[in-house]
């Protein structure tokens, strides 16, 4: 039986364990960590892909960033989407989950399916749908003129403020149901008896929600918060396909701007784009860390 020498049974198991996780680990190092390091190095260089040289001075790309009005606009836009859209979406998602978690409610499955449906749509698809709905000759205009709210067709996507509003509305439409699913599964883990006890203690629905549901959902809130911040800081598909950053780059996001500077519009400014993308990385990391810290106060 035990013909194999050298390797004991336990050692062989150990080796198998390591072998199993090696391909995935290598791929993450080569496809995520190493490119991140590369991006950091490239951010101190200038020139096109085939011809990268150290910048003179080395921090040139970072200095340029400070004077780049367009990047500041892109950053401002991204944060505007973040600050307005994420809180509304999360509150709405919790509210919907809370309503749908009621056992007396009829057609729960149907409601859930319908509210969840938008996240089966491709990002590009829904961006184009919203672009068409809000077009000057689009349905929203026809409807608003029809019922007399607007006198004449309004170019929603041609005005910076309303174009930003359309992006936020579209984002809410696409992602609220997605987040609701997390809260629903979080709520289902809360024992029903906790609510019974609260009822006996005479707590009303509002108090129950704030004193029981929200604290118990805190881990889910922190996680959906991190995911939403991460996603919003990286907004790309919507900016490209809904407004194409316009009018006149007033709705452009950071990722879209970086793309335009590197691989998008024939401006292969790899060094500068890498410096910009490093800022996105730092923002994602810092905001996630803050979120984790805030979420941790309970323990």
């Amino acid at each position: 039986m035990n013909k194999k020498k050298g390797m004991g049974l336990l050692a062989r198991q150990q080796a198998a364990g390591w072998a199993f996780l090696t391909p995935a680990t290598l791929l993450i190092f080569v496809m995520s960590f190493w490119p991140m390091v590369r991006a950091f190095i490239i951010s101190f260089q200038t020139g096109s892909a085939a011809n990268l040289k150290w910048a003179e001075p080395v921090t040139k790309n970072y200095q340029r960033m400070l004077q780049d009005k367009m990047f500041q606009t892109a950053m401002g836009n991204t944060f505007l989407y973040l600050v307005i859209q994420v809180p509304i979406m999360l509150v709405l998602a919790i509210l919907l989950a809370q309503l749908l978690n009621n056992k007396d409610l009829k057609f729960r499955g149907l409601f859930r399916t319908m509210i969840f449906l938008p996240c089966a749509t491709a990002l590009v698809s829904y961006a184009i749908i919203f672009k068409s709905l809000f077009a000057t000759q689009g349905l929203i205009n026809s409807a608003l003129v029809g019922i007399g709210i607007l006198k004449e067709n309004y170019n929603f996507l041609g005005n910076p403020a309303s174009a930003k509003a359309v992006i936020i509305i579209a984002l809410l439409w696409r992602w609220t149901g997605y987040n609701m699913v997390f809260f629903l599964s979080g709520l289902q883990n809360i024992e029903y008896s906790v609510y019974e006890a609260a009822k006996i203690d005479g707590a009303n629905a509002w108090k129950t929600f704030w004193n029981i549901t929200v604290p118990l959902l805190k881990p889910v809130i922190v996680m959906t918060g991190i995911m939403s911040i991460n996603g919003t800081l990286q907004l790309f598909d919507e900016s490209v396909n809904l407004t194409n950053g316009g009018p006149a780059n007033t709705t452009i996001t950071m990722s879209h701007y970086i793309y335009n500077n590197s691989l998008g519009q024939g401006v292969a400014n790899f060094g500068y784009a890498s410096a910009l993308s490093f800022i996105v990385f730092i923002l994602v990391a810092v905001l996630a860390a803050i979120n984790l810290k805030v979420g941790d106060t309970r323990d």
Partner: protein
Amino acid sequence: MTEAPRKTNVSHIQLRLIPSYIFLIIVSLISVFPLYWMLTAATNTTVEVARGKIWFGTNLLVNYQNLIKQQDLWRAMGNSFLYSTVQTVVCLFVCSLAGYGFELYHDKHKDRLFSILLLAMMVPQVATLIPLFMMVSKMKLLNTVWAFILPSISTPFMIMMFRQNSRNFPVDVLEAARIDGESELRIFFNMYFPIMKSTYAAAAVITFMNSWNAYMWPRVVMKDNSAQTMPMLIANLSNGYAVDYGMMMLGVLFCSLPTIIIFFVLQKQFAEGITGSVK
């Protein structure tokens, strides 16, 4: 405890739920309407769409003919299917193997390595775009399925999902198989895989959808017209000056249909897939 009081009780509860119903109906309608509109627009002429028609028309065939005249629709559909399927199979294999390794063979070092891998979640896609593009083009893989799948074969999200779900894998089965002299890899294929079927289903749904919908990376590495995917195709449609809304919405419909069908058929797996790593 007779019938009568219970009934009034029930209708009393339903009465109090009326505001909830109204709110949920409004939200549901808003959620469904844009997709319903897409469906109707695909069957109408561009003039009818612009006029605000929201019922089905008779122009579907003409829209279809215009669409295939302008774009290689079935090529793009085929590409998207091919890339997403290969992506799903390879990703599931690599990540489940890792999740299995991390959970069932876990020790201090592997746990530490796992938390390092999780940091990859913080890496924004746009930051790795340039180095990855340089890497892939140096490897002469542009416009191939490998360029499409390489960066997202191994994701922390999927490894975590398989690792979490592997906790439910009965360890005695593993021990028994070992005593029977089964090799570690055979155990993975013959025991782990069948037992974890539902996790694989959820992971497959989410991976397929994500890669079907991918846009930024394919746009960078699948420049060739013959390599383009559905999201790229419909993005091209909408960039023209004179947009044919009927035709464009038919394109959007083609792009959305596979994921929407998957959603309706496998909704439970989809919900499990997105929340999978949280439990």
